[in-house]
């Protein structure tokens, strides 16, 4: 049974005001197309969760979608600050933003605990740091084998997780390659999962390489076909990270009104990702086109009776 739908439908049906939302992807496969649709549909009071809020949450926070941010690294990677997040935290523009802060490893532990339905996850970090004093949800337990105390973090179970993938079949079985980030854990931890794919493929393509299936359709609620949906992030083998965009964002996001103008032009003013692709123009996609470097194949074998 096909779960294929449009981004508009998927967001309308599966993302509610007040939801806890994770659009994951460590640098790689960050689904900006979904974020833009959420901004367009003016979703409100979201609790946004990601290790690295990146430009995607900078945009959503500037647009007023969020009431809270759960994170571990608040930067424009290799460039500098996330100015919109800083404005919200430092000055309450456009609205005050609650923050709940971990280290990367703390967030990793939270997603694992969420996926595994564990009440807590132990991590050998935080000792000696002020982070636990700033976040009372980071606690400690005694090791019953006598090595002393260890910090633990609570599970993170998003209402919705949205993941961009390279290819998926119509049931949501998805192949991912390149950086894996927290994709598997963020999906298994969620109550609802939206898979956004560069390519929709026949299930035979998936079944030819079952070890590459990071997300099973079993846990997927909707599948959206949205090529270039991760730009200015990237999809390994499909298009490069748009470093020019990440650098340009540092300038244009320094002023709230300039940022809003950008949203007007590139988000509110467009019906969807197809228009975004067209407006960016072919020279951008040409510039981001990688060369070919193929994986080689492995034989899974045929096993007749």
């Amino acid at each position, binding site marked *: 049974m096909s779960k294929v739908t449009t981004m508009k439908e998927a967001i309308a049906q599966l993302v509610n005001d007040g939801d806890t939302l994770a659009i994951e992807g*460590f640098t790689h496969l960050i689904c900006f197309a979904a974020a833009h649709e959420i901004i367009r549909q003016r979703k409100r009071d979201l609790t946004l969760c990601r290790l690295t809020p990146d430009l995607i949450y900078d945009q959503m926070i500037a647009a007023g979608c969020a009431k809270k941010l759960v994170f571990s690294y608040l930067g424009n990677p290799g460039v500098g600050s996330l100015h919109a997040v800083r404005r919200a935290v430092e000055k309450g523009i456009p609205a005050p933003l609650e923050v709940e802060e971990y280290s990367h490893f703390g967030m990793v532990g939270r997603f694992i605990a969420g996926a595994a339905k564990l009440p807590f996850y132990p991590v050998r970090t935080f000792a000696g*740091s002020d982070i636990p004093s700033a976040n009372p949800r980071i606690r400690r337990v005694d090791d019953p084998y006598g090595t002393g105390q260890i910090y633990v973090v609570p599970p993170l179970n998003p209402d919705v997780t949205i993941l961009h993938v390279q290819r998926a079949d119509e049931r949501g079985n998805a192949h991912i390659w390149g950086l894996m980030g927290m994709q598997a854990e963020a999906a298994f931890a969620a109550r609802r999962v939206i898979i956004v794919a560069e390519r929709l493929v026949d299930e035979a393509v998936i079944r030819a390489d079952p070890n590459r299936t990071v997300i099973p359709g079993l846990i997927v609620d909707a599948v959206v076909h949205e090529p270039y949906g991760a730009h200015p992030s990237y999809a390994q083998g499909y298009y490069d990270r748009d470093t020019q965009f990440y650098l340009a964002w540092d300038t244009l996001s320094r002023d709230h009104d300039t940022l809003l103008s950008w949203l007007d032009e590139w988000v509110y003013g467009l019906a969807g990702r197809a228009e975004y692709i067209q407006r960016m123009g072919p020279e951008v996609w040409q510039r981001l086109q*990688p060369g070919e470097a193929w994986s080689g194949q492995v034989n899974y074998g045929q096993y007749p009776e």
Partner: protein
Amino acid sequence: MTEYTASEMMIAASARELAGARVVFVGIGLPNIACNLAQRTVAPDLELVYEAGVYGARPSRLPLSIGDPCLVAGATSVVSMPQLFQYYLQGGLIDVGFLGAAQIDRYGNLNTTVIGPYQKPKVRLPGSGGACEIALLARKVLIIARLNRRTFVDQLDFLTSPGHLTGGESRARLGDYGQGPTAVITDMGIFRFDEKTREMVLTSLHPGCKVEAVQERVSWPVWVAPDLAETEPPSPAELGIMRQELDPAGRYRQ
């Protein structure tokens, strides 16, 4: 004499600290270039692990981000974040981690979280990322920072990543973690940590730099080693590798 920039001095000094190291946790920017320089000079067998989950990368270009696709293509292994943080970092495979910070105190404790009070920050900084666990779990830590009084402070506004805490045995009492920072590589000299007090001690001055200039840029009274050395300047070979191979566009030269 060959000319070179302060950044090149920092990169060369950082690379030399990797002599004998087997596995390094690589960050973007100066540490990235330092690690690649070390592989080509003092540590040919050095293995590089990137925080994004990449082991044995062979980047075809200088990446802007730790998660750049050029680090993935042609790498030896690419793993998920749970595997990276649990099996590589917490598992004890990392010999050396590099860290920087907005604020550093005399014990090598680092702040990358806030300037001002946590609940109402004057400046909201990026936060820990992986720094807190690198600081605890790498066998040793190298800190890279440019000297100035806003960075080298008497008292951190927030302790994100533990160095030697309050000095003495205070870090050892945390439990079974790495030994913490062993050197602070700055644009004017190199600090190490006193074996007993665990306070920073200036052990080497870069050519042309003076102790007084260092002290002007540090908020606490600087300890100077009795055998204060002069840092060996970047060699022509080191400069050649940096300029021709690692950063031909000179992005990290200034």
